[in-house]
């Protein structure tokens, strides 16, 4: 089972977490961990999520989240967790 990190950065407004969580739920994806903060009006959230497998579903999820980001006027990245581990751990 693979994990991915979904990060959302942008101007805060109501409904960002709800929309992202809904999209994840639509893809039947479980949220393992959430960390969210607001730094001088900039909304920053990271979500660790479970992926059943890395296939077309991952690509679709990524596309849907990117579209959602455009709609909410925030930047949404969906990346496999390994890249963060690789960079920050020996």
């Amino acid at each position, binding site marked *: 089972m693979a994990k991915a*990190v979904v*990060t959302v*950065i942008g101007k805060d407004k109501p409904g960002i977490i709800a929309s992202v969580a809904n999209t994840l739920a639509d893809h039947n994806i479980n949220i393992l*961990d959430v*960390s969210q*903060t607001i730094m001088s009006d900039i909304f*920053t959230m*990271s979500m*660790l999520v479970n992926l059943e497998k*890395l296939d077309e579903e*991952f*690509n679709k999820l*990524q596309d849907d989240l990117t579209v959602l980001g455009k709609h909410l006027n925030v*930047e949404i*990245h*969906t*990346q*496999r967790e*390994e*890249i*963060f581990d*690789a*960079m*920050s751990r*020996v």
Partner: protein
Amino acid sequence: METNQITETINMVSEEHLDIRTVTMGISLLDTIAGTPQETAKNIYKKITTYAKDLVKTAKQIEREFGIPITNKRISVTPIALIAGKATPDEMLYYAHALDDAAKAVGVDFIGGYSALVQKGFANGDLALIESLPRVLTETDLVMSSINIGSTKAGINLDAIKLMGETIKKITDKSDTANAKLVVFANAVEDNPFMAGAFHGVSEADVVINVGVSGPGVVKRALEKVKGEPIQNVAETVKKTAFKITRVGQMVGALAAERLGVEFGIVDLSLAPTPARGDSVAEVLEEIGLEMVGAHGTTAALMLLNDAVKKGGVMASQRVGGLSGAFIPVSEDAGMIDAVKAGVLSLAKLEAMTSVCSVGLDMIAIPGETPATTISAMIADEAAIGVQNNKTTAVRILPTNGTKVGDLVDYGGLLGTAPVMPVVEKSSADFINRGGHIPAPIHSFKN
């Protein structure tokens, strides 16, 4: 979940231009040799399009999953002079077109390996290949060439240097930009994933994946945090940053090799600039404390940078290879271009810099009327630095007809823009015309 680390990684990609510069598939062509050039060309096309069929698709998927751009997908092959041992210069076109067609069919950005290794002397295939270069580099689009004219073990082939000076001039007469696809090496490495010098050495496995990482912007940003601190802190910061960058290269390379079902070769941990602002090696050197690259102290700063990149990267990767260090191509680096325009960075200083960095005089425009023997002499100087010091050096020089010193020449895309630089006008002809072979240096009594 470490939010800081996540933000750091995302910023490296989105603001600091961190990218995997290239995933390069090395393919041996030794088993494609057949009775005639036409048959061999057919085999070459078939082998490349079989093994590299999914290279671009795989790289794009990895790019997506990790959110890290893979700027180029490339192929390197066995030096063609070895495959075309019997060919005439005209027949060489079959091989070149097979490479070009195969590269286009699989959708890669470049294919390297239209190469000859002549450090000790010429065989028939070497001479045919060099003679075909003006046609090949102007009649194909994606084929890249390299000629190795010297090595620490074999010395320097002055006949080859003379021939290459003349060949570069002939290429210029056909095209202003084609010389960007040709590099003249001393001590060429067999697993380099970077262009124009990539080829797949004869001691390599049949098919491998090599990866070249980049990221001068990331290093510069990290160094901004240690402004004014002692120089060893600069080295430490570069090491740590190089480690992070290289880990990404290692991960991407290993995964690409696994998905393509081939062996993982090496990570080349080079700081390779692009013409984009903020993606410049010159700006890193300036961040270390130089008002502009080319100022006194540039060579020392570059030595530290090059060495620290290697030290940081070596631990991050299972196997390091290629050129590994810092690249200083003038036309591909916004900071270098500025320094040349300002008259601060000269050819002489660039030559000094090549004695401590991973390559040589790279992407430098010079006036079109520069004599062939002067170009040869510039190659000889670079080769001397490499051969004497046990390192790779290279010359990729671009004489441009109808230009004068200070004019700007545009090479397009990643190749950037180069200001035409002055060369010394005194003649080196009698030296080059001697021909022959400079003996290999002795490696005892080091001083």
